[in-house]
């Protein structure tokens, strides 16, 4: 890959993934079906966001959480704008 190509590649940022602990009932759905294995669980079944860099923002964990307890932040504004011209 040439240097120019690299500079136009958006930097890989991990999305912010939050678990609302007061609402989560530790059902395990988000953990079981995340295609990128972003979550582990603690000893009591609470999801731990251990690999956010692998997240592809598919939103499956958000939309399948029965307790409205997971959120994944929206993709940032077009990152190309922030890359300084070569």
């Amino acid at each position, binding site marked *: 890959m040439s240097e120019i190509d690299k500079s136009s590649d958006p930097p890989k940022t991990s999305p912010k993934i939050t678990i609302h602990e007061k609402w989560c009932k530790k*059902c395990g759905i988000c953990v079981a079906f995340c295609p990128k294995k972003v979550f582990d669980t603690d000893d009591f079944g609470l999801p731990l966001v251990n690999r956010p860099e692998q997240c592809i923002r598919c*939103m499956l964990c958000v939309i399948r959480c*029965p307790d409205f307890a997971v*959120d994944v932040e929206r993709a940032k504004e077009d990152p190309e704008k922030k890359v300084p011209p070569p």
Partner: protein
Amino acid sequence: MEPLSEVKDFLRIEKFPHIWCAGCGHGIILQSFLRAVIDAGIDKNDMVVVSGIGCSSRAVGYVDFDTLHTAHGRALPFATGIKMAKPELNVAILAGDGDIAAIGGNHFIHAARRNIDLTVVIFNNFNYGMTGGQSSPLTCLNAIAPTTPYGNIERPFDICSLAIAAGATYVARSTTYHALQLPELIANGIRHHGFSVIEVLTGCPTYYGKFNSLRSPSKMLEWQRDHSVNLKQYQMLSEDAKEGKFAIGLIHSAERPEYTDEYSKIIQKVQVVSQKEPR
């Protein structure tokens, strides 16, 4: 897909965490319903949500619309009254399979026959969750419930086919496993001018799951994945292969005169006649 923060504007946040059991699919359907309302571009104040009694019916307590939590099986008569009085409102019904297909079954077929512009979302968890998991008219053949301890010998209704036969003009089915597709199916039901039915297969891990070896919530979702087939593929299956499988997607849509439209035409007609012939 929008993040959850947008959906939260439609929740009564102070009521959370909700009462449903860990892994109960009702919360998944509720989120999809709210995404559908957002997708259909409905103003909060133009939507009324009505329910009967059951775990699923508790959904109306958590949403920030005008809501009615009525009597078991009677959501449709209340909703019909609201729609007749104020046809400009969007009226949605959130109902359990027991609520809509057992005690409320008669209301269901007649609302469909009239093609009144209501949107019914059926939370089909295949049992009466609230009262301990008894079998419902949608419980699968051979399934175990406290009322069918040796297996269910009653053939369940296909509630979508029933709705079509009775006259519903928008009929769709999905599952909580397929939650990514669900908001669009519900949104199109809300947009549709006529009686719309969206059946959603969902999990009651506490009872149905416990009695039928699907104890964990994710097992219930896997069951839905393994027992549902896209309508086109379903139609190509042999009759034997169709047994126990559920067609998902848009199942039926048609245009037919809508009840409140016809009713307002009658009112106009009668007004013209009574002006001509004063008593």
